[in-house]
């Protein structure tokens, strides 16, 4: 470990970390919005399940390097290219979790909500989505941690956050930069995971009292 290098590059490390967080946040946020749309389509009409599941499944199985290689000729070496790739990988996980959450709302809850005169949108917002929270939170945890790892790969197309730090470390045989990049990334993943768990707990007080 070259502590002098670390001391001299605190600003760069911090900037790379912020980049990493921003890349991850955009990917998870956009991925969540798209997945929520997909999940609601599927929940309303099961016929959408096959096509959406197929599409997100295929995206998920494309190796990340190959996906970026395919995208670069179209969208160039850009943030957009990175985010298209990152978002693609969140869709399968998030869509499946949200659908499972909505499907898991017990029939008698749905029946009593309908019977008391909830409109479809009132029921979705006040009943179905809150009750899906535990599964949605589980999906967000997996998607976020996965995305934090994948952001590293986007270093190859000029983005990458902490991945960029590591890539340059490899190229210049500066192993301190490699270690710092790896350790901070792992730390970031752990912190993000714990933060989502904490938010999930605050958002679902009923699951804790027995």
């Amino acid at each position, binding site marked *: 470990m070259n502590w002098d290098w670390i001391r001299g590059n605190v600003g760069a490390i911090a900037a790379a970390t912020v980049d990493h967080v921003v890349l991850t946040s955009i990917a998870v946020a956009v991925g969540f919005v798209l997945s929520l749309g997909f999940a609601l389509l599927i929940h309303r009409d099961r016929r959408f399940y096959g096509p959406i599941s197929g599409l997100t499944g295929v995206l998920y199985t494309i190796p990340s390097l190959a996906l970026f290689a395919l995208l670069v000729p179209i969208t160039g070496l850009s943030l957009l290219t990175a985010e298209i790739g990152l978002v693609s990988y969140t869709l399968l996980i998030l869509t499946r979790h949200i659908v499972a959450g909505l499907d898991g709302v017990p029939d*008698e*809850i749905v*029946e009593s*909500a309908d019977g*008391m*005169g*909830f*409109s479809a949108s009132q029921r979705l917002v006040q009943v179905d989505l809150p009750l899906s929270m535990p599964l949605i939170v589980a999906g967000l945890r997996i998607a976020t941690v996965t995305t934090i790892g994948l952001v590293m790969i986007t270093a190859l197309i000029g983005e990458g956050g902490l991945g960029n730090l590591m890539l340059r470390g490899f190229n210049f045989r500066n192993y301190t930069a490699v270690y710092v990049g790896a350790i901070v990334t792992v730390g970031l993943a752990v912190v993000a995971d714990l933060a989502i768990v904490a938010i999930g707990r605050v958002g679902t007080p*009923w699951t804790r*009292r027995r």
Partner: protein
Amino acid sequence: MTGATIQFEHVSKRYDLRAKGASSAVTDLSLSVPAGKICVLVGPSGCGKTTSLKMVNRLIEPTSGRILVGGEDTASKDVTELRRGIGYVIQQTGLFPHQTIGENVAVVPKLLGWPAIRRRERAEELLSLVGLDPARYRDRYPQQLSGGERQRVGVARALAASPPIMLMDEPFGAVDPIVRDRLQDEFLGLQEDLAMTILFVTHDIDEAIKMGDLVAVMQAGGNLAQFGPPDEILAAPADAFVARFVGADRGLKRLSLTVVGDVPLQSPVTARPGDDAAQARRRVIADPFPFLLMVDDANRPLGWVRPEDIPTAGTLTGDLAVGSSPLLDRRATLKDALSLLLDADVQAGIAVDRQRSVLGLVTADMIAERMRDGAHVVPDESYPLESPEP
């Protein structure tokens, strides 16, 4: 709050046999529930009773026919508006696990846009009404409550917006028999004040008899087999299906519909300590029920005296009274009265009022005779529920 009538006019629900779905068909159902009455739909599974219930709040749409609530065709109303005006209680309660008890009770008021303070007050009022201390229960979650408590909350929630009609689908089906019995009694007590029109579904004929002002017995295929007051169903089943469904003990079941205060009581010969013995003796020997009932100054029973034990001269004393009879509260059912009488030494029960004053005698023979008499008057609101205090 007063009820509205519920009328089914030639209502049918047919299902495509290939379609999935757990609901049963209903065939040409016509019946009318007067305002303020409880009508129980009862029958074996697959008889379409729940389907019929759910057609009222349009969770299931009829294939043909009309359902009128308060004279208005339900099909002509906005579906969410219709449902907000109908209380709905189901067996599994359907309480929202993510909301506190207070929030659960105030669900419909919230949908109706009541301000938060009024919702909160209403929730507390209703929790008290169903016997749950608001301070203790308001902020709990449903899974922290017992099954019986959850059912009470379910009833409170259905009452929240004071609906004129209420639909109850096996509301007490998921709790143990003792709790069920108590919930039934409490609900009947509430209904005396609220006088809603209630459609109540159960598969349990005993519950139907207990809860219903009117009972609709349905059979497979959604056909109405018989519709009438419970006593009529028990006394004169319309066909073999109804007879089998109400059970071989339907005579005994009828006994639980009538209370001691409803039957014409025999007047025993009574005397007080200090009365003239010879005169009492003459009266007893002339009476078809040849026993003397000794009573105190407040007309409370002391015990029986056999005619041969009555002195031929002098006055009566309290220590002559031996043995006693079961004391029957005038609100006790004939079924309970009979079971007490069969156990007792003297097969005559003494009907008493709240002050334990003697009202008259009930004998096992009288009860049996009353049951043989199929054409006797069905108790209804024209008959005083409380016999006058002496």
